[in-house]
């Protein structure tokens, strides 16, 4: 699973996700992409699960690019613990995703295969998504 190698601080504020994505809103690497249409926190497990779904559906064809990285640690307090006593321990990593962000790109597969692979991947993600293709007459 994706995780930072080292971080400056162990814990992060929860934060809020405002506005639209300012970067990574168009295809940069592949011919097809999966774009987030609502804000959300995507965990490293969800990214890995979606990546696996895409890879398995594409079998031995194509290439994948993951354009989000889970760099925000999320802490959780243990069960049945009274409030106070400091922040909980970091448990998992998330990527903050804004609407318009392209999360995955693929190339080297036909359009119908790409669409189905992204449908399967989208089911693993906590945000609504949209399939996008590079502008061309064929698509």
């Amino acid at each position, binding site marked *: 699973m994706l995780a930072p190698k080292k971080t400056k601080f*162990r814990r992060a504020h929860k934060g809020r996700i405002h506005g639209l994505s300012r970067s990574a809103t168009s295809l940069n690497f592949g011919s097809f992409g999966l774009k987030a249409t609502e804000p959300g926190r995507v965990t*490293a497990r969800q990214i890995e699960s979606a990546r696996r779904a895409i890879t398995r559906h594409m079998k031995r064809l*194509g290439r*994948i690019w993951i354009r989000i990285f889970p760099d925000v640690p999320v802490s959780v307090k243990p069960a049945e613990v009274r409030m106070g006593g400091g922040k909980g*321990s970091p*448990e998992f*990593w998330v990527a903050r995703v804004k609407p*318009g962000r392209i999360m995955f790109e693929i190339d080297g597969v036909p359009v119908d295969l790409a669409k189905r692979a992204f449908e399967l991947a989208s089911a693993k993600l906590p945000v609504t998504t949209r399939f996008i293709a590079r*502008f*061309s007459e064929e698509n």
Partner: protein
Amino acid sequence: MSEVKSLKVETRSGTGTGAARAVRRSGKVPGVVYGNNLDNDLIALDPGELRRNLQKTGFFATLFDLKIGSKTVRVLPKDVQLHPVSDLPLHADFMRISKDSKIHVNVPVQFTNEPLSPGLKRGGVLNVVRHQIELICSPENIPNVIVVDLSGLEIGDSVHISKINLPANVVPAIADRDFTIATIAAPTAMKGDEEKEQAAAQATAGDAAAPAADAAAPAKPTPEKK
């Protein structure tokens, strides 16, 4: 040379965000025509027609004739701003073209003879480094596409600009190096599968040796030292 197309435009008045938003509210896309040391022309375009043209390959390498008022202006699209989520056009920039000017134009790359590449046949993936190439040429010499022949390429091979036969009087804008256009890469799916299989084999071996060892433990953030 690519054919010259026409686009229906209307003139609009007022510059700035407020005027542009008013145009969008009326169902049009605001745009601007600049260049040739003349004053800017403010235009409004039909969103459907603009999108249809935008979806075609080589929109930014196609010359357009815009009828602005009583005059017809030959222009080259320079930029189209899209909405980050819906990808609908928000604004379009066009540059006036004169016959004797040298222009920088992004021409799309078309790949041919894919079945004749042994690397692609073996499951390799065409990794397109540049989907379009910036060229310097006169308006009459804009090529429709740059054709790249993939025959005979193996996994790991790459195509550079020096291998491409450009038309006469057309030069690439990047002249200081022999830049890469595409490579034939091994598919990530193949690599990933092999890694997964190896990892699974190791995990099962580890489990058999020491069942308590959690070989597949997820990478957790480092716990704080107290």
